[in-house]
């Protein structure tokens, strides 16, 4: 059975690090990478604009990834909803979930927890949290 690696992509540099890590891991094991971008319904503004922006972010991140040596092209998935829940759902049949570590204030993390905490607590498969690259590899320009 082909292994599935689900990676959360949100257009940030750290999520790109997560995608790079996932791709490297997939290359070793011949796994399928699914890049999942979760977007949120805006409280104001146009839904279509937000969705289109999310689609662009996802396409851009995937296009920038070095897919050499991958046995399957990266699968792009755009989802709308609460981030942790959607990721946990997307990871239901996955072998591994890969998330970028978001920089966050300690107090906020202790009070509210983070997406990666909540996914790691509840996902049925192992969850990898990837720190941002010390070399400062960036996506945003």
């Amino acid at each position: 059975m082909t292994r599935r690696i689900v990676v959360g992509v949100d257009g940030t540099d750290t999520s790109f690090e997560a995608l790079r890590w996932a791709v490297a891991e997939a290359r070793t094991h011949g796994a399928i990478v699914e890049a999942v971008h979760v977007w949120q319904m805006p409280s104001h503004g146009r839904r279509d604009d937000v969705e289109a922006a999310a689609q662009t972010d996802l396409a851009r991140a995937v296009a920038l990834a070095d897919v050499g040596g991958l046995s399957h092209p990266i699968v792009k998935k755009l989802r709308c909803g609460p981030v942790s829940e959607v990721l946990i759902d997307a990871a239901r049949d996955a072998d591994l979930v890969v998330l970028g570590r978001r920089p966050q204030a300690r107090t906020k993390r202790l009070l509210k927890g983070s997406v990666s905490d909540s996914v790691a607590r509840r996902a049925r498969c192992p969850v990898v949290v990837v720190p941002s690259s010390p070399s400062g590899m960036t996506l945003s320009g």
Partner: protein
Amino acid sequence: MTVRRLLVGLDGSAGAQRALEWAAGLASGTDMEVVVVHVLTYGTELVRDMSFETMTNWRRDLAADLEGAWTELLRGPGAAVRWRSVLVESDSASSGLMQVAAEVDADLLVVGAQGHGGLVDRVLGGASYRLTHLARQPVVVVPRDRQAG
């Protein structure tokens, strides 16, 4: 980035065993080295009314667990994992694991979703989760009831 050396935190808990199983599966038959680590935390284990002798025995027992019962699956027939163990003292499980990770130049840290700490740890987020926010390496959190395979 191929993983060359991964570190697994062990504390005798079922959660830590799941982490070790996952790590062994990843490393089996490869050149990857698995470093199993137990952190003796001053707060919970050492600063009690403990004589020097008790402390020495405790450390010896933990070292025996680390080389014995806790790592049995690495030594069974057909086990093809390159590994070694490290017993380290630190003020917290997460800082001890990060210290060893730096010393052995680990590429990946593997911990169980449960284990590594008592009630205080759980209230404050747990050692495993603290690691995912602080470690310089990617951290894998392995669930206790993970799917087979």
